Structure formats: structure tokens, C-alpha cells
């Protein structure tokens, strides 16, 4: 295994929050880490840049990984320029990455999406393998994400309004946010979830939005309410707003026609998508209802 020396991006142990319980072990606190999985293709730069930005908003450091027999010079240069340690890992990329994710200090892994001539960003087999097995956050980055300059200041959280899908956001993501990144919730009504009555659409939508936020995402700064195909509305919100990352909770099952929203958003999104597994470390408690954006 080859290592690039630690640099300024190498994580430092953050100040631990005060705990009411005495520490159980004398081990030094582990430094939270975001892994950036770099491939040889064009997405590596975007993946690494996104990893750095995402690490900033959750107060983590970044480690770059490359699965292969050697470290390509371009990746080494990329990592050095970004001030990130780069490691080579052995074995098939999918399994090797999953093995890295289980390290306790790892908070998230950033991987790249593919690119078709049509402009869609299909999730390749490795990325899909990792996303479906990761108990941590997975950030999937298109090849040339829109508006990739500047820090990550706005997250768009499409929220369907069930306890299970909002729990990872409330319990796993929010506590990690350290930079005050603004969270904007998008709730898309479908034919099944349409409001049944709107006396005054503007005022009633405001009320419905307030309730959705209070119930499911009290830390968000505002809510957008839309109707129609969810992926289309997500894309529109990204196009019109300052959003730098989409946050979706999902059930990690994409076969058999499931997770249609996640698949649709991933394939069309021009910005990185953060996937929060509802049953992973992100969704720590038992789930009373199975619904999530990934559920059928």
C-alpha cells in the first residue's frame, strides 16, 4: 500500500461534545473521515472536490482511495493539489471500498457517477454495489457537477413526509452539520399524497409546509411545496435555487423497480446526491413504517 504523506486536509481530532456518560474506553477519539473513491476516469476531480466540501460541512477530514494495482500519477497530483492523503487499496473496487466504509471513523464515502451521451448519469455497478451496502452516507457525484465552485452552503432535502425517511436526516445528518449550511426541504405531492383541500392555496400551503417542517425537519430553513413527478421537481428546484447537494434517504434496495425516485434523481441530477440509508448507521432505530423514497 502506497501512502501520500499527510497534509493540511488530513483530519485532526475534533473537540468531542460533552457526554453525560463517562468514556467507555481510553482510546483516543477517532477522527471523522470522508472517503473519496477516485477512479481513473474524468469524475475523479469532481469526486475529490465534493469530498472536500462535504467534509467541511460535517467537520471531517478527507482520505482519497484508489482501488487498483498502482496509483496513477494524475490521481496523485490531484490529491496533492487538494491537500488530501491518497491510498491505494487492493482487491475488487466494490468490495474494497465497502471494507473501508466500515471503519468506525468513516462518516461518508464519495463516489462518481457515469456519464452517457444523453447527458444522464447512470450509477455504475461499483457505485451501486457500494451504495446498496454502505451503512454510512454515500455521496454520488456527476462527472461535471453544476456550480462546483465555492463552498457547499445549500442542501436540498426532498422529503416525503414519513418518519422513517426523515429520521436519518434528523438524527444522522443534522447533528454532523457544523458550518451552518442552509437546508431547504422540498416536498413533492404526488397523486396519492395531494392535499385534499386548499381554501387559500398560498396560505394553506404555508400552513402545510410549516407542519411538515415541524414534524419532519425542524432544522431546515425553509420548505418548497410542489406537485408532480418528484425527480422533475427536484431538478427544477436545483436549477432555480442555489442548491449544491441533494440529500435523499433511501432503503438501499434498487432492484425490482424499487427506489425509482433515487434512480431518477441520480440519473438526471447535475449536482452531487447524498444518500442516507434509512436502515444503516444513519437510521439507528427500528423503523415503524417502511416507506421512504426508495420504497416502492
Amino acid at each position: 500500500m502506497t501512502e501520500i504523506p499527510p497534509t493540511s486536509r488530513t483530519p485532526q481530532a475534533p473537540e468531542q461534545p460533552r457526554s453525560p456518560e463517562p468514556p467507555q474506553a481510553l482510546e483516543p477519539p477517532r477522527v471523522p473521515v470522508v472517503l473519496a473513491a477516485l477512479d481513473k476516469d474524468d469524475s475523479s476531480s469532481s469526486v475529490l472536490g465534493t469530498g472536500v466540501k462535504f467534509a467541511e460541512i460535517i467537520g471531517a477530514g478527507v482520505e482519497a482511495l484508489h482501488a487498483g494495482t498502482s496509483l496513477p500519477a494524475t490521481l496523485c497530483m490531484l490529491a496533492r493539489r487538494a491537500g488530501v492523503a491518497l491510498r491505494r487499496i487492493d482487491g475488487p473496487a466494490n468490495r474494497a471500498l465497502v471494507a473501508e466504509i466500515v471503519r468506525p471513523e468513516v462518516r461518508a464515502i464519495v463516489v462518481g457517477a457515469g456519464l452517457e451521451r444523453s447527458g444522464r448519469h447512470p450509477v455504475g455497478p461499483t457505485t451501486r454495489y457500494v451504495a446498496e451496502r454502505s451503512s454510512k452516507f454515500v455521496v454520488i457525484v456527476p462527472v461535471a457537477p453544476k456550480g462546483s465552485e465555492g463552498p457547499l452552503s445549500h442542501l436540498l432535502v426532498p422529503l416525503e413526509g414519513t418518519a422513517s425517511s426523515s429520521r436519518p436526516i434528523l438524527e444522522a445528518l443534522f447533528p454532523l452539520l457544523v458550518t451552518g449550511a442552509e437546508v431547504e426541504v422540498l416536498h413533492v405531492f404526488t397523486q396519492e399524497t395531494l392535499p385534499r383541500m386548499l381554501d387559500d392555496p398560498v396560505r394553506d400551503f404555508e400552513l402545510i409546509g410549516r407542519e411538515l417542517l415541524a414534524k419532519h425537519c425542524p432544522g431546515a430553513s425553509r420548505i418548497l411545496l410542489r406537485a408532480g413527478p418528484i425527480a422533475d421537481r427536484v431538478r427544477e428546484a436545483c436549477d432555480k435555487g442555489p442548491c449544491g447537494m441533494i440529500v435523499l434517504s433511501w432503503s438501499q434496495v434498487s432492484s425490482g423497480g424499487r427506489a425509482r425516485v433515487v434512480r431518477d434523481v441520480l440519473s438526471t441530477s447535475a449536482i452531487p446526491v447524498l444518500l442516507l440509508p434509512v436502515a444503516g448507521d444513519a437510521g439507528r432505530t427500528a423503523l415503524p413504517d417502511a416507506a421512504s423514497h426508495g420504497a416502492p
Partner: protein
Amino acid sequence: MRRAARRAALDDVRVTTDVRYVELSLTARSDSARFAARVLGDQGVTGSLVLVAGDELGSLGGVPGSDATMLVDELVRAVAVSVGDQTGGVASGVQLMGGGQLRLIEILDAQLERRAARRVPGVDDDPRWVVPLPRDPSKVRVTEALGTLANGRVGVRGSAERTGQRASPLFAAAGLYDDRSRLVRGPIWTVANVADDSPQPVVGAVDLRTGVLVRVDAKTGVRSLRFVSSEQLHAMALRAEAFDGALLPGDVLEVPDGGGGRTRRQGGATVASSGSALGTLAVAAREQWAGDADRVTLERLCAWSTGRDGAPAERRAARQLARAASVGFDALLAGQRRAWAQRWRGAEVTIVGGPEAARDELAARFSVFHLLAAASAGGEAAVGARGLTGDAYDGHVFWDADVFVLPALVALRPEAARAMLEYRIRRLPAARAQAAALGRTGARFPWESARDGSDVTPRLVHGPHGEPIPILTGAHEEHIVADVAWAAVRYAEWSGDGAFLEGPGRGLVVETARYWASRIRLDRAGRAHLYGVMGPDEYHEVVDDNAFTNVMARWNLRCAADLLDQVQGPGGGSADPAGSRAGSRAGSRAGSRAGETAAWRDLAARLVDGFVAEQGIYEQFAGYFGLEPLVVSDVARPPVAIDVLLGPERVRASQLIKQADVLMIHHVLPTIPPRGSLERCIDFYEPRTAHGSSLSPAISATLLARAGRPDEALHLFRTAARLDLDDVTGTTAGGLHLAAMGGVWQALAYGFLGVRTDSHRVVVDPHLPSAWRELSMRFRVQGVPVEVRASRDDVIIASSAPLQLAVAGTEIEHRGGAPLVVPVGSPSRAAVKAAKRSPP
């Protein structure tokens, strides 16, 4: 024995017997028990609040003991205790305590000790009257709205004693707005320092019968009871108790953030106020703690007062508190129970059937409860769209008040309906000013009204990306002008207050007619039109000749002309025997008025209404029939906000409508459309109605029932009746939908019971759904308390005064006194008989 009694001239003898004796008398113990139950019921003391004690509640030698006759149906939920030996056992539900008289004294002493210790009183946990509140912590704001208590003057939401982040407590006074035309948020007097503030299930319930809210916190064991007095209108009270330090001294009053409020100590009381220079709401509170190391009780008495235009409210609140304190908690609670019992005597709704009917009954009573709490008698009553149950719509007054709430209140509390009209009367100058500002005459009431009657409808809002969204209701939904006039006439006709239209209410009818006269335009053919209006169907925003608006305006013109002609005679001459110059001026004015009324009648005759005689239906507005002929079932299942699904442009280009629009003509002016039009308009418009407004389902239910389709009506009635209980709209957190509640009452009265009035009689024509065996309602009509009970077999009408009736097509003169029984299906006058029942 009965024969022997009859020989002794005791025709209606009561026989009481047990194993030891037989007693023949004019009254029996069961009569006494019923009498006691009725007297207590009149005080709001029912069910488990009543103790039935005796020493022979069990059987003696296999025969029921003499005291068992006290266990009458009226006391079925009473606490029954036998202090006798009762070796033969006691009936189910009777507690056998033994111990004789001394035991009974102990039981009574224990009750007195509870009072002395200021323990939290119980409520009669009657499932027909007690509404359980949602326990889900994520629905905390819905729970708060559903748990609102009000007395028409002030209202407080049913917030927890310790409010969490998700809570939205509100204490507000009717018609008290701040300088941004929002309800003033007054000091919260229901707070208490509960030691554990983690979200936890709380069992809460509103007792509709007595107007109290009870809460039991499952985790901390804190129990509480609160009420807003309906007898002493400025008094409010809270009691709470807890064990093991779960309830601690803390803030007595909480001033809302940003309310410009303050709190201070004054004498032994805490006084707080909030609001703005235009209006402040003050609360004074005094609390007493009692108990020991294990259990503490908190008793808090409060009083409120308002100060408008800078008048000091705090001192008045403190004075009101002294009055409340001199009455004391127990007497205030007794008064509260008494006041609500009295209200229900004139407003009770009873639905008999299976479990679903019981659910319907509770939902109906919930609606009536909040209608009764929405306005009080005397002065003026500004009834906002959500009443005092939440801050949605800022407490603004819409047509909801005039067309949906007032018709119910005029039958349940006519004096409160009168106060609602007083609100409009006092804002006539503002309505005149608005008409003048638009270059018109008369009075133009605004779509949304608050403190001074100026138009407070928002004109523009900004969307999520800052884009401006125009709000067109204020400029175009002008049927409100005629709705106000209609409310005035409805009040006068239903209440029998004939002097109202000749006196204070006249301006509401006449000035609105003047507005229409200046608003209507004639085309080259001489037909009259109302261009650029919005009907109740707000999906089609700006249209010409909306049928409902035009028919209402025409009715308004004719009604005002009739009213003025009644005063001065159709020829315009007014008698002036003195022949003075003043008389001459009056004559001249009368002549001018006669010209005016003639012009109104002419305009009314020319005003198009879209009625297509060949089809028997009204066209909703000019060009409506040319729109895409979509029906709701092609797209979604109603009720549905179909504009969100299809987009406003698509809906605007279609025949899909938000709510009853043409059908509102049949609802508010049932005698105007030609015979047969109701059925045809239902057939045409109901499939096109998305019921995307909370006002809609109850109106359609009313009309379907009237049209003889009660089972279809029941489906929509249930949507309306459960609207807030099930949070159908997702907006109950912002307050309860009072208009829907008024619609629920109207569906019951006008629809299922088929009650209406005309100039000289009360018409009753019931259509019960198959799920209900019986529906009975109490109300007042033309000043007379009435109870109408309808079943499949007969209609029973009880009235203490004479009434001219038409029941299921039969003209009947009811002389008052003994109830009339009219067999349904045999509309023969000979079949009408007097029943041996007490009048209401």
C-alpha cells in the same frame, strides 16, 4: 294492583316493591331519580359526576331491592354504591362497600376533602360527549386546535402546560387585532412548570357537555382541568395536580415572543399584557398551591381584559380577577357546567344508529360546540375563518361568517348571530368608503375584514423564489357584498326579529343594493351584467356573469326595494298630515327613493343569470359550457385540490370546479331556482366539483339530502364533520374550519331534517340516510324553542309555543305544549296526534 289503584282513582299509579312490601303511590323512587337526574343535568352534572348511594341496591330474596329502582337509564353512568349488607349481591356496576350510614358519611367526607385539597375535578367520561384528542406528539398543533376552549369573547388553544418547540399556543380575543391586522396574541395562562419536558403521550379530551379540557400526562402523572368561563365571561381557571415533584412553581403567565408584552406583579397577582397601540390583551392571574411532599395541587384563577386604542387593560383585568376570586374555582366550574348545559338545551343534536352513527353524532356535536363558542351575545362579534382556535388567516372575517356560521347561530344562539351582524353594521362606513374609492355608490364589504372594516385581503404574496403571486379575491370576489345582506335577512326571518331590517339592519340590505346598482353594466341590448367577478369557485378567477353572484345581486336589489317600499309604500308617498316643509322634503326623498327602487327592480329584471331553461341548469359563468368537459373522477378521487394536480391553467380551461358555486344558489336562495333545477344542477355540477375547499362538502351534503339522496349526502357530510377531527386538510394545526362546522349544522338541519322557514311557517321534510335510525335537533325559530325528531316512521315536533308547520307535505298548526307526532308516509292531518312527551 293496578286495577285496584284505578278503582281508587289512581290512573297512573307507580308501584314499588321488594320482597318485603308493595307501595302504590303517585311517584316512585325511579321518578325521583329521573327528576334528580334532570335537575342535575340542567346543572351540567351527569353520569359519573353523580353518586347514587343506598343500602338496597342489590337483591333481597331474589327480588331487586327498593333502592335499585333509582338506577334508571338517565343515571346509567352514575357511580352507584351500596352501603348495605347485601348478602344477595349487587347488580353489575354497583360497588358494594357495606358499612351502612357511617360508610356513606365517609364517602361524602372524602368528596369534601377532595374539594378542600383543590384536587382536579373529574368529568363525565361519556363517549357521546367527550372528544379524545390525538396523542401523537407530531400532531401537537392539531391537538392544540382541537382542544381550544372559547366563550365567544376569548379563546385559548389546548396547549400542554409545558409547551415544547413544536407547540403553538394562542390566547386571543375576538376582534382584537394588531397594527398588521393580525389577531393579538395574548399572555398564555395555561403554562405550568412540569418537571419533564420530553415529548410523551398525553391523554387529553374535551368534554363538550361542560366545555372543559382535561389532560393526563402518562409519564409525569400530571393531571389538569381548565376552562374559559361561559358564565363569567372574563374568568378562566386551571387546576393541576401531580405526584413526586412533577409539578413545580414557575412562570404564571407567558408573554408571546414579539408581542410587545410585559409581566409584572400587582398585589398578590401576576399581570401580563401584549399587543400593540391598537389593542392590548391583558391577563391577571393568581394561583394557590396546596398538598404535601407526595402530591401538590395548583389552582390558578385568571381574568382577561382588552384595551383598544391605548386604553389600559391590565387594571381592568386585575379587577376582573378579584371578581373571579370572590366566586372561587368550584363555583366558577359549577357555573361553567350550568352555562353549557343551558346552551345544549337549545342546541343538542342526537343521531341514533350503529357505531358509525355514534361517530357522526360526536362529530356533529363537536361542530356545534365550536359554533356555540365562536360568538357571544352583546356588542359585536368578529368571527374569523378559524374563530379563536388558531392564527391561520389572522382572524380575518370572510363570507364564512355570514353564509356558513351565522345561519347556524341564528338557530342556536340568535343573540350571537345578532352580534355578528353588529360587526358588519359598525363597518358600514368603511364599506361605503371602499365603494366610493372605486367610484361607486352604496357599500362594498371587503372579502377579508378585520378591525376597522377596511379591506385586509392580501393583494400580492411572494412565492418561494421571490416571484410575485397576485391574490385576486379581494378585487373580484364581490358576492360577499350580497352575502352580508343575505345574512341580515336570514337573521330577521329565522329569528323573527322583524324590527331588525327596519332599523339597524336596513343599511346592510339597502347600501349593498346601491353598490350593485352602481356596479352593474348594461349591454347594447339592455341586458345587465356583472363583469370581472369571482364566484365561490376560485379555480376560475375572473369571469363575467357568475351565476351565483348575479342571482345574489338580483336578490339583493329586489330585497332592498321591497324593504324600502314597505317603509314608504310602493308609490313612494309617505303620510305627512302636518304638511310641513320637512314633510315636503321627506316626500321628495320618498319620491326619489321610489325612483331608486323602481330602478333597482328594473336592473334586477335585466340582470342575466345564466339559466338555460331547456336544460334546467345555470351556466356557472359566461362561457363555462365551452370549457373542456372534464369531470373529477377522470382525474382523481374527490375531495382533492385538483388545481395542484393538474396545474391552475389546465383547471381554469376546464369545467372542474373547486366547490359548490351554482349550487350555492339552491342552498341560500332555495325558492328562486325553477322547480327541478336542483336535481339537474346536482347531476351536472356534482361530478365536476373537486370539493377542494373546506366549505364544499357540507353544502353538497345538504343539497343531496334535500334532493332525496341522503346516502350520497352522508358520505360528504362525514367528510365535513371529520374535517378537523381527522385533519383532512392538513391545516387544522392553524385552527378549526368554522365554516365547515356551520356547514355541518346546515347539512343536518336543512338537509337531513329538511328544515326551512318561509314567511309564515316552518317546513320540515326529513331525508334520513340508511345508517341513521333517528335524527333529532333542538333550535330556536322565530323566537320559539323547538325540537324536531325524525325517524323512518314519524316526525315528532316539540314546541312550547304555537307554530305553523308543514311536515312532509302536510300543513299543521301546532298549538304548542304536547309534542306533535306526524307519521311519515301518511301525510294525513288526521294522523297527526299529540304525544305524551314533555316540551323541550
